């Protein structure tokens, strides 16, 4: 397998506060990689670093090409879709407008064809098509956020805690749909989650972060089986 995304000695800082201390990781082409860790471990910062939303040092390569130091808009245009923490919904706009914005970088006609595909994954969005996005429930907003990201036709999808603030039933529903997306779309996914059990089930590879450093890495299935790692880092 070849790596779609590679980070080498990645550092990041907000002003004076350093949050990442030299990460090395890779996301393989067409597979799911999970980034686990407690609150404040640097998971969200890692995603933000990939998208050029924080100041970084070190190298980030997308398909062998360096993207560190580029503007967020340009990284996105290379096919990196990011569902940020808080989902990044345009609350004032309608579901339709949110979806149109997702496809903003693509020719309008090609994107419209993809709308039906999104309704296939998320029928709820079709029902709410003309509604203001701020009136959607948390689960629906998460669906909208994923649909918006997929409409970019990304090579790499960055998902920041899709389970956050949602009822367990909804989380299961969303991960069920994401499994279909993983198998049908061929998009590589880098998933950040606090819910380690569900993430390790979904991912192929996993990295475990602690205060800005990678402490464990390997196949997700191996990490899920490793009793000591589970007890000391994942708490289940």
């Amino acid at each position, binding site marked *: 397998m070849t790596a779609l995304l590679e980070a080498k000695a990645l550092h990041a800082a907000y002003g004076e506060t350093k949050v990442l201390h030299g990460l090395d990781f890779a996301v393989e082409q067409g597979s799911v990689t999970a980034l686990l860790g407690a609150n404040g471990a640097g998971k969200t910062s890692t995603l933000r670093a990939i998208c050029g939303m924080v100041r970084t040092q070190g190298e980030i390569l997308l398909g062998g090409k360096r993207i560190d130091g580029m*503007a967020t808009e340009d990284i996105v245009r290379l096919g990196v879709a990011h569902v940020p923490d808080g989902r990044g919904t*345009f609350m004032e706009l309608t579901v339709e407008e949110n979806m149109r914005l997702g496809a903003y970088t693509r020719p309008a006609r090609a994107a419209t064809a993809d709308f039906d595909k999104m309704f296939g994954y998320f029928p709820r969005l079709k029902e709410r098509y003309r509604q203001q996005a*701020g009136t959607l429930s948390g689960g629906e907003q998460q669906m909208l956020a994923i649909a918006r990201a997929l409409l970019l036709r990304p090579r790499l999808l960055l998902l920041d805690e899709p389970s956050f603030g949602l009822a367990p039933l909804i989380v299961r529903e969303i991960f069920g749909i994401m499994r279909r997306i993983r198998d049908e779309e061929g998009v590589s996914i880098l998933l950040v989650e606090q819910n380690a059990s569900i993430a390790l089930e979904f991912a192929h590879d996993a990295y475990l972060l602690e205060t800005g450093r990678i402490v464990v890495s390997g196949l997700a299935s191996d990490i899920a089986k490793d009793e000591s790692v589970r007890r000391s880092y994942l708490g289940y």
Partner: protein
Amino acid sequence: MEGFIHQIISGIATGGIYASVALALVMIYQATHHVNFAQGEMATFSTYIALVLINMGLPYWVAFVGSFAISFVIGVAIERLLMRPVANAPVLTSVGVFVGLLLIVNSVTGWFFDYTIKQFPSPFPDKSLLGGFVSGHELGSTGVTLAVLILVYLFFRHTRLGLAMRAAAFNPASSRLVGVRVGWMLALGWGLAAAIGSVAGCMVAPVVFLDPNMMSGILLYAFAGALLGGIDSPLGAVLGGFLVGVIENLGGAYVVGTELKLTLALVIIITVLTLKPSGLMGRKVYSRV
């Protein structure tokens, strides 16, 4: 009774001017949360550009469109060169820059075109229409401002670029994540606001005559209109502009007299800010948590 109807109709005509300037104010407010105090002076400068083009012998409508286009470029340039460096500065810095811009544009206008009051031509026939209720210019300028407002509305509602500009104003961080070039959207907003100002200037100049301070009173009425309608609602600002035009005209004719008309703008501003700060159509955003 006839006088009353006439006052309302000419109130709507001037209201169209206020509505245009109010819309220009709101467009920049939505994106930056600042009121561009220089909007009026920029519109005056645009009107002089139109006059120069007319004096060069160009047909009126060519000069009109030329001024529209040049104003757009100037608006974009102001955002790129002046506003960009203070984009993340504290509020007072931005206010200082806006006030500075007002003084600079005002002085540059006087310096280039001198301070004497000039006549500005109207493209519409100089005769009474609709049984003497409305002058050709009143009807024509209302039509032009309405057409511009409708075009702007359609642009924001039904084009990708318009949607991207709205998104960039509401949520810049998320807009970047879908590939919108947020900085350029802001610059385009400034350009569009300046261009709309040029229309307002060209439509009002035949009535009030052209001098470097032509727009200072109009900016106040427009600001009152924007507040009355809701400073963050483009549609509200347009309606507010028309309302203020009518209120100003009726108040001037029947209540306070023409000398004290400008006070009405201040009365409206204070009343709205004390009683209903969000204005008539100020946006309520619903969010479930």
